[in-house]
């Protein structure tokens, strides 16, 4: 019974990670960039969702609007920040991205204050109870949201012409243009979707804790990197499974080995062990 | 002549792809052996297995009577092997000359700690220039590798391999990407080096040159050896003709 509950909690953690990490893995898959500022977009999503929800009183409005807004910001970040340095070695984009992330966090603090914001009337907090397990609506929404969003994304990339164009662009952007694929549009779409998902994750997290803080991107900024590596970099399905596995490992780890290693250390110890056994990650592309 | 390289029962499967299945052959000291076969026959895979860039499921490879199939690549190079890549792999951050100079200094960098010993690179650079001259690309010596045409990079591969002063040189399609004048010229250079005593194994689709310079042919198809022998004899074999030979080769062989 306890194990089942821990498993469920792990899956909730994991679903959360998955929505954040998938945007990162999309960017990595397309451009080979470790896009740390993704975590900044996640926090921005939290702020936007909370502010819109508070002022309109409707999460139904707040979440999609936040996603769309942040999606557009993501596109701008690609255009302004990454496109000019695509042909540089990978660490260049990584450090630029870290700089951007720090600047974003500071901007949040200066604009929204250091204390964090809360919902005036937090939605999705009602408690559902079955078989002695207590869950909040938001818990269920997260799991349902991540499975459906990632499912849709996976369908988009495997079964549609746009997905095909995306994959062709990964292989050879220059030649893709010569077959009528607008590489710029593919990349815009990629950043739009990835950033919008980050925003959705940000809104979900803010509902879990009823708190949006300038530093809320801190944990995803590095842990999401670990997840996409576990998932085999650039692999959507792999990222989902890696997220869930990591969520479960953390859920059990904090209880049973929490006094030996902290949560981050548990996650990274797991990562290192996996990489030593399978250097290409859990789900390699080839 | 004695056997310099013995390859026995090399088997390499990539998942479902049987790139090599029980391939065996020998290379005599001083010989110029050509490895031919259809696209995807496993030729490149064979050379990579010999230098240890890939690890076959099964292999016995002996250089001069010494088993080398367990050794890492750099050890095999120390023992006298050298390889040029089919798909060129230069050091893109260096000039052409430095690409070769580093290989010239291979004795200095053999051990990490002795590599700390010297600072002077002039002797090696001068030697590198000579090698570049040998393959006709010395005019590019101080240029960066980026943006060089394929033909120059192909020859750079050859110069760099020669810089290692190998006993056995493995060439993977060195002539591809050169026009027929350039190809003939580079082939002549390779023949000259061979005459000076260097043993050579060359993969090449340019049958005209293969028949001109090769002492002996080994033919692979679908990961298996299907023929071996003197060029003229091999070219007459019906299975080789069926698998490989086209109009041009017919003309050349005729």
């Amino acid at each position: 019974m306890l194990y089942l509950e821990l498993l469920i909690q792990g899956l909730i953690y994991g679903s959360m990670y998955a929505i954040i990490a998938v945007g990162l893995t999309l960017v990595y898959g397309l451009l080979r960039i470790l896009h740390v500022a993704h975590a900044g977009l996640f926090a921005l999503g939290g702020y936007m969702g909370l502010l819109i929800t508070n002022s309109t009183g409707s999460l139904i409005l707040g979440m999609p609007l936040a996603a769309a807004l942040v999606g557009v910001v993501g596109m701008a970040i690609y255009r302004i920040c990454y496109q000019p340095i695509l042909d540089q070695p990978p660490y260049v984009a990584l450090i630029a991205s870290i700089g951007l992330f720090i600047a974003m966090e500071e901007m949040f603090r200066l604009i929204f204050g250091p204390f964090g914001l809360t919902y005036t009337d937090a939605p999705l907090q009602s408690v559902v109870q079955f078989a002695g397990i207590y869950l909040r609506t938001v818990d269920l929404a997260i799991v349902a949201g991540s499975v459906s969003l990632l499912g849709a994304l996976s369908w988009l990339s495997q079964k549609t012409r746009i997905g095909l164009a995306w994959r062709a662009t990964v292989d050879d952007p220059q030649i893709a243009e010569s077959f009528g694929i607008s590489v710029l549009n593919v990349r815009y779409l990629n950043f739009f979707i990835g950033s919008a998902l980050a925003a959705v994750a940000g809104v979900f997290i803010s509902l879990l804790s009823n708190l949006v803080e300038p530093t809320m991107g801190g944990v995803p900024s590095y842990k999401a990197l670990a997840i996409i590596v576990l998932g085999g970099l650039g692999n959507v399905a792999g990222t989902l499974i890696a997220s869930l596995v990591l969520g479960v490992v953390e859920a059990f780890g904090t209880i049973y080995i929490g006094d030996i290693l902290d949560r981050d250390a548990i996650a990274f110890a797991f990562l290192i062990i996996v990489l030593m056994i399978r250097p290409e990650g859990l789900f390699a592309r080839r | 002549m004695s056997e310099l390289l013995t390859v026995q029962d090399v088997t390499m499967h990539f998942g479902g792809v049987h790139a090599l299945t029980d391939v065996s052959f020998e290379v005599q000291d001083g010989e110029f052996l050509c490895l031919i076969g259809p696209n995807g026959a496993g030729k490149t895979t064979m050379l990579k297995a010999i230098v240890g860039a890939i690890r076959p499921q099964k292999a016995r490879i002996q250089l001069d009577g010494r088993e080398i199939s367990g050794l890492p690549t750099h050890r095999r190079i120390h023992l006298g092997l050298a390889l040029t890549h089919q798909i060129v792999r230069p050091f893109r951050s260096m000039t052409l000359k430095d690409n070769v100079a580093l290989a010239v200094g291979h004795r200095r960098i053999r051990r990490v700690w002795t590599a700390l010993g010297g600072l002077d690179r002039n002797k090696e650079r001068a030697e590198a220039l000579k090698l570049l001259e040998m393959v006709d690309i010395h005019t590019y010596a101080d240029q960066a590798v980026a943006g060089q045409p394929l033909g120059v990079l192909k020859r750079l591969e050859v110069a760099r391999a020669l810089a290692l002063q190998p006993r056995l040189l493995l060439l993977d399609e060195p002539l591809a990407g050169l026009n027929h004048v350039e190809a003939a010229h580079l082939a002549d250079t390779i023949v000259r080096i061979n005459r000076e005593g260097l043993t050579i194994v060359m993969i090449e689709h340019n049958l005209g040159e293969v028949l001109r310079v090769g002492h002996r042919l080994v033919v692979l198809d679908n990961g298996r050896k299907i023929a071996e022998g003197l060029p003229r004899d091999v070219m007459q074999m019906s299975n080789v003709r069926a698998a490989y030979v086209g109009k041009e080769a017919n003309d050349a062989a005729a």
Partner: protein
Amino acid sequence: TDTIKIGFHAPLTGFAASDGKSSTEGAKLAVNQVNAAGGVLGKQLELVIYDDQAKPAQSIPIANKLIGQDKVVVGISGSYSGATRSAAGVFQEAKIPYISAYAIHPDITRAGEYVFRTSFLGEVQGRAGAKLLGDMMGKKKVVIITLQNDFGKSLAAGFKEKAADYGINIVNEYQYSIKDRQFGSIVAKVRADNPDAIYASGYYFTAGPLVSQLRAAGVTCPIIGQEGYDSQKFIEIAGSAAEGIIITTSLDRDSKVPETADFIAAFEKQAGFKSDMVAASGHTAVMVAADAIKRAGSTDPAKVLAAIQATDLKVSTGTIKFNALGEVMKAVQVQVVKDGNWHHYDVIDDPALLAPPAE
């Protein structure tokens, strides 16, 4: 010079910026109040503020700058333990008095006789928590949830030290990191443990989510926190789940004592947000410094030092006196959340229990 400079460092940027903001506002308020009342020694006080990001590597040059360039008379830390402990060494070496407003590391005052602390040690407050739970509330089967940093660890140590004395049986202890906001697995396990009460350390931004997640999962037993919870933000975050949460702290919201009541009102007016323990601590430390300079009648460090040692001052966080080590001796306030606000619950004033180490 026509002003008397007091050095102040706090985390104005980075992860601890919210506490830095509170403590800075508290300190500024104190300076304004002193100056409005005519300053000290006929001069105005000037607060020299630097941002240390709560990092030791930053606070050392800052301490040197405050001493060497700004020539401050007293240094005050409105920062966390790491930054405070390393700056303390610099002040001690330069023989300039230094007061830690709310950092809890036990070794801070051990840097030397020039270093003081106006807040409780983590251990002291942990002991008070044990008394509160075991003795005053009569709960015996307790689960500890510990924040994994110097604050949480020393609270837990103090709590565990006295737990047995009050008949408390600690069934389990769980740890979480300061970055955690999701406690699903700990909550599930605590529910299975079914304790009589929970002793959970944390700051408002961790405790808020923790408490609301515990309550949502149907954990109804009392939850005891400490001064880290002590912020209006905690109540905003936890919402209705905050009702009935009890903490040990140094600020009594219902106090009739004028110093405290005035502070609470004046702070909100100046800063634009409600006061909390950190703000009150920043305020207190400056008040102690100003009072000492006044009594010393001079800015000579040795004289100021002697004056600080002899402090007996009523301020927002109670009556401040120091022991030989420079640790504060005062009563612990117990507060409870009622109708969305902090209110008086009790006071723990047991000198033996609350005695800080004296060496």
